């Protein structure tokens, strides 16, 4: 698993960041002056602006327009495609969404080796990115994980703290509301793991119709205690309010809750689920806009830029060559490695979403899960 080798390097962390690529940036020929980039908003988008777009704009004078629509990217791209008017140039999406966009021909197929910079030691891009190259349209950016945070000051827990994921289902020892994502993905896997299924058998069990029912039955045991979230900011907010005692969210959000907002919350590194996030280019862009996108991507996905992003948010860069460059937080000056999902100490138990299984079964499972939720 690349994730493991990726981040054994993170532990080494602070090597001097000595790449000056700015002067190497070739001029962009036949390029549009502006770029419309779609992302997730919040701290994540800020990290992208600081690490990618601001230096790029300074060097080239390109005007950036940011749109915070990534969670509706598939619906909107499909609508734009039907209307025949694509207004976006570059879209940040999660792995499964990129799969869907690629399958439907809404995203452009890319040749990473031809398009992107090689690692400083000459390793071609696809090899440098390793497992994070999940389909023909995806330009990887970060590895993130979905994991749990819990409050450390819950009186009803009598001084106990959750040690593993299954505390989620133990409402006797750990009473209180839980916050889970309003989607079947990850929840089903966690439910089965706590229902005694081995990691290696997970998707074999899920592949049977009874498997999904079994997972839902396990979730049924805590259904009344769950508040569901659909935006990544909700769990941290609820944890801060004391509205929930434990909840799943993206590890970067928990990082800012714990480190920047100093809430009495801890992270539970057990069965975190890895996902990839990256760029896709909408299909059929006009040539001048495409040239600009390509020029920007070449810059924004090089080894140094990906490492720079990790100074602002605790997501792991998806290039192996970026790992040694990850160091301390740009403003807080703290060591980032302990908060990285790819840190070996945080990787005792972890899962990687089976993207192919989810692509094949998403429609069925989602319908079943939503009906289960509504009842």
């Amino acid at each position, binding site marked *: 698993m690349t994730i493991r080798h990726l981040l054994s390097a993170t532990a080494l962390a602070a090597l001097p960041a000595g790449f000056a690529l700015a002067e190497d940036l070739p001029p962009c020929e036949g390029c549009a002056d502006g770029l419309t980039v779609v992302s997730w908003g919040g701290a994540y988008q800020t990290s992208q602006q600081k690490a990618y777009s601001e230096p790029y704009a300074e060097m080239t004078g390109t005007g950036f327009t940011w749109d915070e629509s990534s969670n*509706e990217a*598939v*619906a909107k791209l*499909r609508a734009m495609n039907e209307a025949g008017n694509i207004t976006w140039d570059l879209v940040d999406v999660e792995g499964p969404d990129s799969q*869907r966009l690629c*399958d*439907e*021909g809404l995203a452009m197929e890319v040749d990473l080796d031809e398009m992107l910079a090689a690692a400083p030691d000459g390793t071609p891009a696809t090899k440098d990115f390793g497992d994070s190259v999940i389909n023909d349209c995806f330009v990887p950016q970060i590895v993130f994980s979905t994991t749990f945070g819990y409050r450390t000051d819950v009186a*009803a827990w009598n001084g106990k703290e959750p040690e593993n994921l299954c505390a989620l289902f133990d409402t006797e020892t750990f009473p209180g*509301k839980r916050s889970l994502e309003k989607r079947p993905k990850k929840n089903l896997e966690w439910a089965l793991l706590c229902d005694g299924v081995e990691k290696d058998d997970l998707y074999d069990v899920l592949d049977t119709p009874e498997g999904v029912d079994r997972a839902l039955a396990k979730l049924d045991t805590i259904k009344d205690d769950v*508040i*569901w979230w659909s935006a990544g900011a909700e769990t941290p907010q609820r944890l801060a*309010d*004391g*509205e929930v005692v434990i909840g799943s969210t993206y590890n970067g959000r928990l990082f800012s809750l714990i480190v920047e907002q100093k809430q009495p919350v801890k992270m539970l590194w057990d069965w975190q689920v890895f996902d990839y996030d990256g760029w896709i280019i909408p299909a059929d862009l006009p040539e001048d806009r495409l040239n600009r996108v390509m020029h920007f991507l070449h810059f924004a996905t090089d080894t140094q830029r990906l490492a720079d992003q990790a100074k602002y948010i605790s997501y792991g860069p998806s290039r192996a060559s970026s790992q040694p460059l990850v160091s301390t937080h740009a403003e807080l000056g703290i060591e980032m490695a302990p908060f990285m999902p790819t840190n070996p100490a945080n990787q005792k138990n972890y899962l990687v979403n089976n993207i192919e299984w989810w*692509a*094949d*079964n*998403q*429609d*069925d499972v*989602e*319908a*079943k899960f*939503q*009906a*289960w*939720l*509504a*009842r």
Partner: protein
Amino acid sequence: MTETATAPAGTDTGPVLAADGLPLKRSLRRALRAQKLRALMLIAPLLIFILVTFIAPIADMLFRSVENQIVAETLPRTARAIQDYDPDSGTMPSEAVLAAFTYDLTAASERKLHTRLGTRLNYEYTGVSSLFRKAGRRVDDFGETYRDQFAAVDPAWEEPATWIALMADPDWVAEYRAWTAAGEAAKAARREFTQAQPLFRLRDEVADVLPETASAYAEFARIAQVEDGDDPAAEDPWAPVYLALYRDLLHVGPGAIAQLGPEAEAMLDAAHDAVEGFETVNLADLYLEADKDWGDPGVWGTIKTFSSAYTPGYFLNAVDLQLTPDGVAAQPEDRQIYIMLFERTLFMSLMIMGSCVLLGYPIAYLLSNLPLRTSNLLMILVLLPFWTSLLVRTSAWKVLLQQQGVINDILVWLGIVSNSGRLILINNQTGTIIAMTHILLPFMILPLYSVMKTIPPSYVRAAKSLGATNWTAFWRVYFPQSVPGIGAGCILVFILAIGYYITPELVGGTSGTFISNRIAYHISSSLNWGLAAALGSILLAVVLILYWAYDKLVGIDNVSLG
């Protein structure tokens, strides 16, 4: 106008004439027409605006809820061939249907349409989506056996040039060469080249002699040209094209082959003699190998049932039914949610409307009866939240209602509830009803107020002076006069509530959400736009029916919006 017009005419006989000698009637009509036209011009911007932003989207929504062209467009050959298939036979369709399906699916997966079609059919029959995905990955190999066997007969069968000579219209070949040359010349001269490429055309007789091959090859050539920007004369045809050739040659007579000219005849004759001895593959087995569920007649029955361009399928889904090859049937129990959601939406909208009347009536009464200074202050208190952003108010309710929120804290502090027994006021129906009642309250108070303002206080005084008690005077005299205001407020609040989306989404959890949240989910997450449109159309119809019923019962003329 009439006076000035008739005066100069001066006589009583004949038509009345205007100043310019024309009959007055016509002159008037002309003046009015100009006026009407001017009026129309004045409202034209609004009319066009409404047409474009309101009527057109609604029409489009209604259309989407029945539109189903995707199946016939993506699988045109299958849609025709499968009509004779009987799903009750319990078997897979015939080889002819499977061959048609293979050509269609190959083309669809080249054009990346098959996953979308799979998703579409999955709405109707569980599991189809994953079947289409899996088969789409390998269907371009179906027919590989035949390619090898044709190549063994004559290696020229593997040459793209052979196929172009056999299939393409010579005129097209010439046009295409000219186009390619022009493109390269433009590139060399660094000029822009915008001329459209000539689309592949079949030669005249080939579609009659080798129908399946011609159709499959033409599709291949066009996709190579348009989707990939390649020269068909340089590309190897898909394996299913060889399958088509094999199937055609089994049926074709030697006389027919002669129509294609001597060169083709020689090659085809040799192939024709050989096909009898070819090792055959069973298409059904290939599909079953890809996934055993292809053997399920329900899958093929679904393709057949939904091969028409329009379907009631989405509307049936919207009321927990489904269209099956055997007619309309109920959805499996674990998918039945829409009727329940419609009922919940109606019930909760009525609750919200009721609590708005209960809370709004006394306030409107006070507003219209207190001295001006106090009532103005009250009015500001009503209007201030009305002017505040909806999101701000909803978020404020989150802060107030949550278990660690202001209301629970106060109750615990007062000792009314224990710390462990904090009330659950949010992420359920209670939360939605409280927050939406507050948000919609001004829509009840304002029409009530404007009606009550017009009720002369002297009526109540007169009733009292005639001996009525306070209650009788209110109930028999004041209240009946305020009913039009209640009607207006109720209609406004109810219709707004029934389509509300953002507040239930934020405070409703799973049990307090409306049908509109489900519509939003289908628009932006599941991308089942047809079902979203059907749900929306039903919601629209429900509102119109309720409005009509209200008109019949109360009379819309009795409603006063002030």
